[in-house]
């Protein structure tokens, strides 16, 4: 039972971690809480449903499941990246030098806009996601690791490693780190800040959309308001690990997933969604810098 909950929590945590990465990356560079990030996750789920159904109509899914999943992943990444890019261009870039309140309100506006756009065009009813992976999985004693969970964990760990390599090893990644440290200095040494911010939004959005895809498969349900709760939880994960810190977001995501799963099993399943909030409050009271974060003094 305990081990099973741990596995479930780990799976959930992988998803939270993927979304939290986008929050933390944007916050690290722009010091902006991107409220519309949860909406990108929701859009990701919808884009996969749509592209998967197109593939089903063409008959590809019955021929090669792996290939079609790969194609769906690529389509989702590209389209949601485009959404992230558009969002940044339309709602955040014009406000980059405005007082802090303006981009926050603009972010809420984008979030509401996207949510209602999807509701109006896709309907407010839940959409059912087809079961495409075979049921069952690896069982040992009374603990089961389903194929779905394996798929989620492997995909997220792969993406996190890829992101890590990207940020550590490539030129663009280096530019991102430099920008996060000091925007002005970075621009003085010839880094194009606009490009860096664009890349940050695209990567963050793509990760969130993949998370949306996997959650849609895991629960088999998609709706237009799924981004709201997931957004709050992923933000909690980012704060838990120390906002602005990439390893922190991953760590916070997994920790939150496991805590939530154990809480739902042993304390109360009705109040499952409350655990994230209680953790957020506790962290803000006792260790506001997060578990892996460091204190950064406010700049004048």
């Amino acid at each position, binding site marked *: 039972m305990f081990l099973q909950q741990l596995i479930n929590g780990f799976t959930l945590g992988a998803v939270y971690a993927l979304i939290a990465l986008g929050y933390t990356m944007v916050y690290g560079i722009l010091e902006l809480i991107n409220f519309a990030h949860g909406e990108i996750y929701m859009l990701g789920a919808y884009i996969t449903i749509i592209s998967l159904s197109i593939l089903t109509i063409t008959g590809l899914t019955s021929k090669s499941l792996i290939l079609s999943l790969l194609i769906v992943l690529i389509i989702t990444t590209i389209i949601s990246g485009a959404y992230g890019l558009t969002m940044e261009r*339309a709602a955040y870039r014009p406000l980059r030098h405005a007082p802090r*309140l303006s981009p*926050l309100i603009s972010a809420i506006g984008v979030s509401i806009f996207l949510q209602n756009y999807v509701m109006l065009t896709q309907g407010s009813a839940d959409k059912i996601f087809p079961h495409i992976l075979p049921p069952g999985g690896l069982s040992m004693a009374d603990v089961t690791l389903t194929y779905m969970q394996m798929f989620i964990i492997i995909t997220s760990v792969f993406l996190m490693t890829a992101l890590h390599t990207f940020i550590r090893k490539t030129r663009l990644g280096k530019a991102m780190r430099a920008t996060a440290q000091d925007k002005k200095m970075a621009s003085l040494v010839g880094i194009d800040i606009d490009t860096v911010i664009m890349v940050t939004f695209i990567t963050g959005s793509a990760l969130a959309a993949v998370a949306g895809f996997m959650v849609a498969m895991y629960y088999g349900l998609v709706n237009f308001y799924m981004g709201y709760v997931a957004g709050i939880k992923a933000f909690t994960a980012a704060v838990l690990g120390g906002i602005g810190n990439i390893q922190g977001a991953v760590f916070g995501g997994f920790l939150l997933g496991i805590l939530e799963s154990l809480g739902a099993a042993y304390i109360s399943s009705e*109040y499952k969604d409350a655990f994230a*909030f209680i953790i957020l409050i506790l962290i803000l009271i006792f260790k506001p810098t997060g578990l892996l974060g460091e204190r950064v003094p406010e700049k004048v």
Partner: protein
Amino acid sequence: MGIEQSAITALMKSAISGGIIFCGIILFEGIKMFLTASGGIAVSNNIKGGLQSVHNIFKKAILNKGLLLVLLILLIFVPFALNNYYIDILTITGIYAILALGLNIVVGLAGLLDLGYIAFYAIGAYSYGILNTEFGIPFWPALLIGGLLAAFAGMFLGMITLRLRGDYLAIVTLGFLMIVHLILNNWDSLTHGPNGILGISSPSIGKFVFSEPIHFYYLILVISILAIFIINRINNSRIGRAWIAIREDEIAASAMGINVTTMKILAITLGASWAGVAGVFFAGRYSFISPESFTFLETVIVLSMVVLGGMGSIPGVILGAALLIILPEVLRGFQDYRMLVFGGAMVLMMVFRPQGLIGNPRRKIELMPVNRE
């Protein structure tokens, strides 16, 4: 076969609408590019000029005390010319005006974002609902208790988050609203869950019981005028000036000896207390409350009123409340698209006219993007 067929048509439909979403976003981007391009600047200047003249008319009207008096007299006598349905709409406008005035203290005056504002409204409504149905406490003391309870909740959240950066407040209050909603839905013995609380008694003075829509209209009118008076006084006091200083430059403000954290906590506490008062009135007016009335969407509506009308401007937010309640009533077909438009309007307002329809001039200068780098 039939099921498969219908599944495929449903999927095709979603594919098409997905395409529409994407095109919509691209279109939005296109419009923006057009507006910033040389030809578009003229168009956007025309729009800005139009807004400016609307603003000027309102500003002149508001500065004129005689006109204010006329407006007041009009508000007192207008219900005699209207049927109950329209009186009710005016009453709802009054509730939202109080909510918007309260949120304006937090967002407009202190410059903090409170996304769980409706949670305080819910606390007010449920405290009267529970106190009245369980303990028989009448409306007037409940008005005070509801306001105080909401204020305490606001103070609690403020004390946790406002020692830190202001941005955390937004997400913590959003989480708080989620929790309040969970409790309202699940704590059956206290809140009756999704069914809500029925049979809350109407307010009364001596033998006179508020029962007709017009009674409630005058009650909310009195409460609103009281709210405007008090908030205006606070705004022009030392506290109000401290808020301006914090909004403009937190570090400079604290160097001038303003206790930034205390002032911010005060703002959210005062804002929350008005939401509590509005909540008690809401429960008294409809004698029925359920969790459905206190969703995140309500927060968004109130926030749109503040942003549209003008952050920090009392006449502005009242105009915002009036517009956003009365316009959807007038344009019936618009109802479905209401939230979509509000969301889009928030972005557009922030980009093109951050001070709102009637913003105060000081606020306008503050909100102009400055290149500090």
